């Protein structure tokens, strides 16, 4: 295993070598939407922050589009056969942007001290970690208390950003003045942030990989209006539209322009999965037959084709086809209004109005809710759309004040990281819109989820997850809508933009401009 990883590294180094032949210099303008609340990735991990800060901070690993780990701050790593000890060897000559030398102590501080306090999602994985140590300045050892299957997938930048110990140790992290001028190890350094307008990053001349990065500077442009973003791309003011930054209806028009390329890649790690929470506690949605009727009533292909312009894939169940351990060996819900009506009749649905809470993320989601309402009303379900903004949506879902609510969540490559959290009963708690919000309780399944997470043998895990998927799909705790695909649109002269499973979130290290 050790040998294998080393080989991978050599290949990566060789790739880097060929890249040297590519042209250096130039500037890239990328849209960021909305404006990030801050750039300190250890404190804030939302999408826009990671888009920008992914160039400033790094983690130990990155993942290719097949979700295989690649070197980043760690140049090589080994996993013990019992799956309990992970040993990472760090790169040579890494310096923080302020010139201080980077060492294994920074990794230990980040994972064991800083992020344990600030990073809720990582915290749930760190409970399997017994100890984190730094035997020497180049080596970090994670020792687990159980063989947590997806552990190798948690070393992505947004999940475990490595932060500088010399700046944060012993301070009030949230109010540390250095948060305004983030210091990382990444290929680009923070330069300026003109609030409401742009964030400017410049090339890290001291980057530890020779010849990288190739670009001189990057501007992340804040343009709050979707139409204005499209215009900005057309007029050449920006070069890259990250996924989701223009409305879907503009995508065909923009990609049809000369010299414009697009890719659906770069979302494999996140595998955004959209569904409607169906409140399992009360109202018609508490009835399994009603929930199944909803699945049959919806024309999900129509939405994919019309609302999402054909991007994405109609899901079969809770696990995305991009995520490990996916199976399509489950009951498939086709668009079948007659079946839906029959189920509704069977349960004796009396036309009680059902509230539908759309996701307040723009016109696409609004249209989607309208299409679903139309589908459901055609089989006799009376729908009232609840209007609210982002804060209201968070509040309503977190407080379970809804009947049906749109959402989408990332899967982080493994069911144990991004899927089980939605379905296990132990994850029912008010106050968060990211847990088992629908209130689905299936105790038999809960045990299976727990067991599958810590199986050392991958094939055993796969079998366990197939079993789980079959049961859940039949229960319809939530109504799965679409495996989202957000095309990244860019000018074709931008090369090597999307190279990993999180796309341009850490892609600018290798990107270059063809002249």
């Amino acid at each position, binding site marked *: 295993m050790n040998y294998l990883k080393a080989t991978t590294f050599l290949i990566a180094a060789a790739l880097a070598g060929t890249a040297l032949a590519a042209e250096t210099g130039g500037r890239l303008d990328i849209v960021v939407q909305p404006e990030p609340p801050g750039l300190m990735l250890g404190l*804030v991990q939302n999408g826009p922050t990671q888009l920008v800060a992914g160039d400033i901070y790094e983690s130990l690993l990155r993942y290719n589009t097949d979700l295989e780990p690649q070197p980043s701050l760690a140049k090589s790593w080994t996993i013990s056969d019992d799956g309990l000890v992970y040993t990472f060897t760090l790169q040579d000559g890494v310096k923080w942007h302020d010139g201080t030398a980077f060492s294994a102590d920074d990794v230990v501080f980040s994972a064991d001290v800083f992020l344990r306090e600030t990073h809720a999602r990582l915290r749930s994985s760190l409970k399997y970690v017994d100890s984190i140590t730094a035997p020497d300045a180049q080596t970090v050892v994670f020792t687990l208390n159980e063989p947590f299957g997806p552990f190798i997938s948690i070393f992505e930048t947004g999940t475990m950003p490595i932060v500088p110990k010399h700046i944060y140790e012993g301070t009030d992290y949230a109010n540390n003045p250095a948060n305004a001028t983030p210091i990382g190890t990444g290929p680009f350094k923070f330069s300026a942030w003109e609030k409401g307008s742009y964030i400017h990053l410049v090339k890290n001349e001291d980057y530890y990989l020779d010849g990288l990065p190739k670009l001189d500077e990057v501007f992340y442009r804040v343009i709050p209006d979707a139409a204005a973003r499209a215009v900005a791309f057309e007029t050449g003011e920006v070069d890259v539209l990250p996924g989701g930054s223009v409305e879907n209806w503009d995508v065909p028009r923009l990609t049809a322009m000369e010299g414009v390329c697009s890719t659906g890649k770069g979302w494999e790690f996140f595998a955004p999965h959209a569904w409607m929470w169906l409140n399992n506690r009360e109202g018609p949605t508490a009835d399994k037959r009603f929930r199944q009727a909803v699945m049959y009533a919806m024309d999900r292909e129509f939405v994919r084709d019309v609302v999402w312009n054909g991007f994405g894939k109609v899901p079969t169940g809770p696990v995305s086809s991009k995520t490990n351990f996916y199976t399509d060996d489950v009951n498939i819900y086709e668009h079948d209004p007659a079946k839906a009506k029959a189920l509704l009749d069977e349960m004796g649905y009396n036309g009680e109005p059902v509230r539908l809470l759309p996701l307040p993320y723009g016109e696409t989601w609004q249209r989607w809710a309208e299409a679903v309402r139309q589908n459901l009303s055609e089989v006799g379900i009376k729908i009232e759309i609840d209007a609210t903004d*982002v804060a209201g949506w968070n509040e309503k879902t977190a407080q379970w004040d809804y009947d049906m609510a749109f959402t989408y969540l990332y899967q982080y490559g493994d069911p144990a990281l991004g899927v089980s959290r939605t379905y296990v009963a132990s994850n029912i708690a008010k106050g968060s819109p990211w847990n088992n919000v629908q209130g689905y309780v299936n105790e038999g399944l809960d045990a299976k989820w727990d067991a599958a997470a810590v199986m050392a043998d991958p094939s055993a895990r796969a079998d366990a997850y197939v079993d789980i998927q079959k049961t859940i799909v039949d229960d319809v705790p939530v109504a799965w809508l679409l495996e989202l695909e957000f095309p990244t649109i860019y000018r074709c002269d931008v090369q090597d933009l999307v190279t990993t499973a999180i796309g341009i979130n850490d892609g600018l290290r290798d990107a270059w401009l063809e002249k």
Partner: protein
Amino acid sequence: MAALTQVFGRLLKAVLTLLAIAVLNFFLVHAAPGDPAVVLAGEAGAADEQMIAQLRARFGLDQPFHVQLWTYVSNVLTLDLGYSFRQGAPVLDLILDRLPATLLLTLSAFVISLTFGIALGVAASARVGKVSDSILTTFALLFYATPLYWAALMAVLVFSVQLGWLPGFGYETVGADYSGLARVLDILKHLILPAATLGLFFMAVYMRMTRASMLEVSQMDFVRTAKAKGLSGPVIRRRHILRNAILPVVTLAGLQAGQLIGGAVLTETVFAWPGIGRLMFESLAARDYNTILGVFLVSAAMVIFFNILTDVIYRLVDPRIGART
């Protein structure tokens, strides 16, 4: 002395108004569903009790409501608008960052609408009943009926996308690093469309009003006196009618300052103009209480400023005011 106490009274009134606004808005904003901790936690993609409790404590949301209110109001009295936890910066800094853009936009729109409105109104009134008057008033009516954002969208479509004459959004060319005159010109180029679309509606208002006012004043006795003196038509219009006709227009303009600043929210959204209107709209969705409140206070202060400005203009034009009070 009288003038001094008057200025003092005016300021005191302004401060009291602002305080009242602070309190009212505090209630309003806190009445909204959702709180910033949940939003922030939500955006991070994961949230547990611990994190939300941490955030709430940081924002001071764990305090009883009246304590929060008292803290806020006493801070405001010392010109401390609080701290935006979402943006990680003092609210005053955030606002001061954005304020120049909004001031530039609203002031230019104000000046454009007032100048062109009055000029066109005078022109129309001088040609009352003729075809050119009908054309002018018809256009004014159309602008008056056109939604601001719609005009803005159309302007971008035509002048920026189709013709490519003017930039369609933003405050200046990013990264161009212009300085001096080049920068001023660059900003001016970006300013034209937003200021024009924001000003268009108000221009229509002022034009209609100026026209009506000119016609009304031209019926007054002193205009007949001026004619009897042998003054020519243009001189009468300029020296006698216009100065008197402008007064109600100025009053109206002062009253509408609030609308102008409100309208800036739409304009700033469509043109991606980095002003406080947009800041408010974004902060609202994030329940960034301190920032929303700060923007409200500052924009109310701007309204008061516009009111005082029009008052000053009024005083300059009308000698009766200063003498009477």
